[in-house]
């Protein structure tokens, strides 16, 4: 695994025109219908200022007089307000793990996470959703909020390209920040490897209960999934933890590999079960999987996009 990597530098590195054209047909789907802040292209439960009539209600002091139905007033001499079905926007929040552990693997997990975030963000922007992104590590949370419209793609891309993964994950703190932020209600996608010493339960629990339609995308490098792949581990090694810099001396034997795989399965399986119990969609993504395939097939199949 090389540590000196060719990092992403341009918008095209994150998302190319061909992919954009394909993504233009997609939309982010929430299994819940949330009320947004702006009029969006999404039908909201909230009755409001759309053209589609929903109901009447009696006038109350302070109501906007523009919505009084004067015809009814003429007939019944009572003030009624016309109520419409309002078309709302969707809040799409993408949280990216920017810890050092993401800067490993071939292909690099962090680059993959940024590409994925860009693709999802582009879909959100294209569909006039309110797109916010968080990048978190132990140094804190960096965010870009409330982008809307396709023309914000370059701003989003610039923000993503500026991110630098380092240090520990600070997962719990980041999730807490996200939960407390006024990001509105909508779809939240957490992109991380979820290999967290402190555990993922507490952090995810904070956002899972806040009305987000939550997706946990677990990005693992091929070498993390199968260490015997090229660039993996073999022989007598001193393994250095990319975040804590702690060292572990191992002699890679079939028994150890088999134990590692069992451990990894146990870890991801545990995450999947935890998510299932809380209506969180969990998906393991290998960083070798093309983003296009992921978006057009996997995520569509899992109902994140349509």
């Amino acid at each position: 695994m090389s540590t000196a990597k060719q990092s992403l530098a341009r918008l095209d590195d994150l998302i190319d025109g061909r992919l954009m054209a394909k993504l233009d047909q997609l939309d982010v789907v929430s299994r819940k219908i949330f009320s947004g802040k702006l009029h969006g292209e999404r039908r909201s439960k909230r009755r409001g200022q759309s053209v589609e009539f929903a109901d009447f209600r009696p006038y109350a002091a302070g109501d906007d007089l523009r919505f009084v139905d004067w015809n009814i007033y003429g007939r019944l001499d009572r003030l009624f307000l016309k109520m419409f079905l309002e078309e709302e926007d969707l809040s799409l929040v993408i949280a990216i793990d920017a810890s050092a552990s993401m800067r490993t693997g071939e292909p690099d997990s962090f680059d993959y996470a940024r590409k994925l975030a860009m693709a999802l963000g582009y879909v959100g922007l294209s569909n006039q959703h309110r797109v916010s992104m968080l990048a978190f590590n132990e140094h804190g949370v960096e965010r870009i909020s409330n982008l809307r419209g396709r023309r914000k793609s370059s701003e989003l891309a610039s923000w993503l390209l500026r991110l630098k993964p380092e240090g520990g994950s600070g997962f719990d703190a980041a999730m807490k920040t996200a939960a407390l932020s006024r990001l509105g209600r909508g779809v939240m996608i957490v992109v991380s490897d979820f290999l967290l010493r402190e555990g993922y339960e507490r952090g995810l629990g904070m956002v899972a209960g806040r009305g987000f339609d939550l997706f946990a995308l677990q990005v693992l490098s091929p070498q993390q999934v199968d260490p015997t792949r090229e660039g993996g581990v073999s022989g007598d090694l001193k393994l250095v933890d990319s975040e804590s810099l702690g060292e572990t001396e191992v002699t890679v034997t079939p028994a150890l590999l088999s134990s590692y795989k069992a451990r990894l399965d146990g870890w991801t399986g545990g995450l999947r079960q935890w998510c299932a119990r809380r209506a969180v969609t969990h998906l393991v993504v290998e960083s070798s999987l093309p983003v296009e395939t992921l978006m057009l097939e996997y995520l569509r199949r899992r109902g994140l996009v349509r």
Partner: protein
Amino acid sequence: MLALTWLTPFAGALLAGIVLPPLLALWFLKLRRRPRIVASTLLWTRSLADLRANAPFQRLRPSVLLFLQLLLIALIAVAIAQPESTGVVDSGGRYVLLIDRSASMLATESIDGASKTRLDIAKHAAIDRVHELLGGGFFAPRAGDVMVVAFASRAEVRAPFTDSVADLEKAIQSITPTDEETRLGEALEVARAFSTNVDPDRPDRTVAAPARLELYSDGRFADLAQLTLRPMESLVYRKVGSAKDNVGIVALAAERPADRPDDVQVFAALVNMNLEPVSVSVQLALDGQARAITPEPIAIPAASLGGAGGTEFRPGSAQVIFRPIAQPRDVVIEASLLRKDALASDDTAFAVVPPSKRLRVLLVNSEGFVLASALDALPVERVDRITGADFDALLASQAPVSYDLVVLNNYAPKFLPQGRYLIFGAAPPLPELNVYGTQKDVWCRVMREESPLLRSASLDELYVGSAIATRPSKAWEIVAEGADAPLVLTYDAGDTHAVYVTYDILESNWPFQRSFLNFVANAVDSLGHAGEAITAQGVRPGDAIALRIPAGSRQARVTGPAGIDATPKVDSDGNLLWGPVLRAGLYDISFLENDRTEPSTRRVAANLYSAAESHIEPVAEIRLGVDAVSAAAVTAERRSSVWPWILGLGLLILILEWWVYQRQVRV
């Protein structure tokens, strides 16, 4: 200075050469773990914990690595035990190495195309044994002390008890071969004398266990029947050699025929030690010049096993008689077998023949023609005749008697000086004859027919009318006697040799019998050459050369075979003594007489002449009293330690194990 002994320098260097580079490689490749950055060691540490959680006990699974590691440890264990390729290494205590250097140890053994003498092989084996006992090597406790005794017919301590390998090796190397016979008794006595610690208060008990005796020999000992092992004594017999093909000369004699004193006739006795008949040609050389060879090879019958149980070895034997060779001068005769066998020392024999000698005889009182004419008929230089009175006068003048033999015919002088006498009739003035009268009418009743005097001279028909009656002491030897008193006696004391016939021949019927002439001839021949063999007396290896040379001789020197050049001891009377003679062959003793500038030379032949030593086949088992000691064979190959090789193999297995391990972890 500390003497270092390297037991296996070659193996050590080889081992270092083979093992060190891979060892370094292992160190670099294996012990230095490569650092590798991974996303998280979380799962790895937990996986390791899983693996370790299964320890220490788990179901044993078949594993090549496990097998190799077990094999490696087993090999190291075996190597530490220091196995050797032959024999058993034991140590501790005291050892006496008895190395046989007798004639049979000069037999050559063919080993890997090279020939070595048994003595060389024995020395080699003894040195190896010293290294085994004292050389140490890894983990080996040192033995106590080792003593080296070389022996043949005598024993010599070559190194007293010591633990110095260098000294012992030097002592063993210095052992030279001899042509002596093998006698173990003295060697055992010497070993016991040095190795037995006796408690001064309890002389019947030894303080410590006797040293262990190790015998390097082919096992042919002349004195074995008289030897026994003492209680607590242990003897290891290390048999040396295996060759048995040998034919040897066990006797060589030369004679000048009485009727042709200028000729030399040579007789040789040969023995065949092989169990099949052999034919061998014998060459005769005079003064180093080949002069004769047997016209046809001499067939010697095979040796046989006879006696009770077929254990008695009887060599095949044959005699060779060469045609007389004209040789009036003194000469050295060398007989050689023209056949190659394992032992060369007995294939050649020497005999030194003095110049031909004719006797000068003095006949005292020549009355009566019978005796005079009998003497005249003999092949002597001359016979002088004088009367009794003249003889007395001659004795009185004290001039040296220059005759080889004096014949007293019925005449008794007042005294007789040293010399050789044939006496008839009147009783001579010789001691312990004890004359007590006369005997009448005597017939010869008893005679010693084996006496050389009576060769072809039977006295059965002899009648004596009157003889002098004597009762001699044991200084006299009776050759023939009548009913009451001896008729023919011999006297040998110092340089006086006499044959006494107790009657006047004219008082008997003897002159008419053929036996008379034969008797006179026998007596003159016997007395005339008494004290000197026809061939000059030789010596046997192990004996000393003793010669009488003119008094006052100077610069005496002995030169002999195998480069022997020594100065003998000579006393003021001219008695020369040098010895012991260790090697068979021809010895020249040169000296300067008083008034001469040219050195005089005498020659002495030393011959093996031992059927026991010629029988070179090594004995498988020797019996000392009731103890049978079996042979532990000794070969010329160096007894080598096996453990360095085992250790080397172990290291190879270690490398293999590492390779297998690497293959497994690379998956």
